[in-house]
């Protein structure tokens, strides 16, 4: 405002007019996205009250009317949720799987990235990278067929080989004890290539003169990895680790739903919060319990992200989310 010369009101007015027009035009650009956010993200947030209500159908049977008419039950839905023996299992599964994915994903990906960067044959490195990255682009539905080709009870390769060698074939889709291993393997299969490529990009960005200087000083290749490569990756490793820990309550629905073919006998090792919420609502129609579980997940996740972000901001302010 101070820039505008008060003695020339006409110019000032036209400038302000054009300012307003510009703001209006820019707002109009953001409008479709904003509308989408309001309808598909903010409107459902009001649905959080479902977790505290005994949701039933009333007349007229519209969503808003049902919400208004339904009785408040306080924390009853949460009480039910925690009485159920499934709850402990699904929380344990979610946390343990995610923790394993984070740690293995990090350690192996960094190791692979270092190995790829040290190969002298660039063509070989490029080929490995291309092959490893491929599963990342496939869906869990496709992946579940890949697994089925090996494990299917009647035609699968492994049960058939077992029968051929005179053993009894394992019924994989009925035996929960094997699934922690299978799911961890499947997750690594799909996502390891991606994290490897990510770390490799960071390693490629390291100034080569650092290695040359280390070599001149007599550092062996292993010492260079220890004292040049790893310190350069440090910030990225910490940030990705912390960000992933912030999402530790959110499971990959497709992995836990499709890969075990939604098999009920496997729930003890395949049920996670996300699949529980889906099944509780779609199969048993319990709006209250599933909303309560969903809200719990979102609330705890929210706190986790706030906490981890605070830590990230201390490590490296540039990388913090907010």
């Amino acid at each position: 405002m101070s820039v505008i010369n008060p003695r020339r009101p006409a110019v000032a007015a036209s400038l302000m007019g054009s300012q307003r027009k510009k703001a209006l035009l820019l707002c109009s650009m953001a409008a479709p996205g904003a509308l989408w956010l309001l309808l598909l993200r903010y409107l459902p947030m009001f649905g959080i009250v479902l977790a505290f209500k005994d949701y039933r159908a009333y007349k007229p049977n519209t969503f808003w009317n049902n919400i208004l008419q339904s009785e408040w039950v306080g924390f009853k839905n949460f009480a039910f949720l925690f009485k159920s023996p499934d709850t402990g299992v699904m929380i344990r599964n979610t946390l343990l799987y995610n923790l394993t994915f984070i740690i293995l994903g990090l350690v192996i990906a960094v190791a692979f990235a270092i190995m790829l960067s040290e190969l002298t044959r660039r063509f070989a490195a490029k080929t490995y990278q291309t092959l490893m990255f491929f599963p990342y682009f496939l869906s869990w539905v496709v992946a579940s067929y890949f697994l089925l080709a090996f494990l299917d009870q009647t035609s699968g390769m492994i049960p058939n080989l077992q029968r051929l060698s005179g053993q009894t074939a394992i019924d994989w889709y009925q035996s929960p004890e094997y699934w922690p291993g299978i799911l961890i393997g499947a997750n690594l299969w799909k996502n390891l290539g991606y994290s490897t490529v990510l770390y490799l990009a960071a390693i490629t960005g390291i100034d080569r003169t650092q290695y040359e200087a280390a070599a001149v000083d007599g550092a062996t290749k292993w010492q260079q990895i220890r004292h040049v490569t790893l310190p350069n990756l440090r910030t990225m490793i910490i940030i990705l680790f912390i960000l992933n820990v912030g999402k530790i309550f959110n499971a990959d629905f497709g992995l836990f739903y499709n890969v075990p073919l939604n098999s009920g006998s496997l729930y003890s090792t395949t049920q996670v919060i996300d699949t529980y919420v889906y099944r509780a609502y779609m199969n048993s129609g319990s709006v209250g319990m599933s909303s309560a579980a969903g809200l719990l997940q979102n609330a705890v996740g929210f706190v986790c992200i706030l906490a981890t972000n605070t830590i990230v901001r201390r490590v490296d302010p540039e990388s913090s989310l907010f």
Partner: protein
Amino acid sequence: MLLHQQPTKRRNLRLNTISLPTETLFHAILMLFSLFCIVPFLFVVIISFTSEDSIRQIGYAFVPQSWSVQAYQYVFKLGDVLWRSYFNSFYITIIGTALSVLMTLLYAYPLFRKDFRQRHFFNFLSFFTMIFGGGLVPTYIICKNVLGLSENYAALIVPMLFSPFNVIIMRTFLQTSVPTELIEAATIDGSGEYNTLLKVVLPIVKPGVATIALLNALAYWNEWFLALLYIRQNTEVIPLQYLLMKMQRNADFIAKNSHLLGADAANVAVNLPSQSLKMALVVLIVVPIACAYPFFQRFVVAGLTIGSVKG
């Protein structure tokens, strides 16, 4: 002296590299994992070309007793339901990608403009949904009952039109490639806001747009969750991914849903090479991804590198 020089020279070639045995070990480990990643796909390709007899005899095998292209012939014979869902996958991917790229660019551009005062509001509006949400059940009920996203194409497109994550990627692309002076210059030259975005900014951020387009196309092509949620009866609109999912649980799904009549239908149902047919469909769904893979590698890595740390 001559005898000595040979090894020194060879060592010079490998100056400041890992030793040969170590490199061999690295090759072995990386090759093993690369095979682990790609062999399942090759196995499914082999099964899709395996005759149904061979599958009945020895199951799925890397070396089948006899080969056959029957599965692919049936894909053509059972035209209606299969091609319909294949078409649906393409349709959803193309429309969804076009619209979502447009929305992402239009939303990210004002956020990047430092002279746009309301940008903080819009930034927060988008960002907050990344860390908190209503959850699956309320979102589902609202989409289905209030917004009418049920049993139609819109249900498979609209819920994925916009992603705050992509907005961040796009905004970062804008920040790193479009100088503020350029926009100021265009404004002084009398260019309108939309004109500036279209004629000045868009040509510069083409790589960013390509990244977002590929990420969205991939997400739409691989989408099955929305169909699982919102499509109960209307098989006319389901994408191939969801068809595959249904076939896993319901072997006759195709025979039941194909519009063949009378004796022909019974005939097809009996002779259906259902096992290899499923795998042939898996191959058909992976082929477009494999074709686009070189582009994915080029653009997606750039986008994800930005997004992974800032998302």
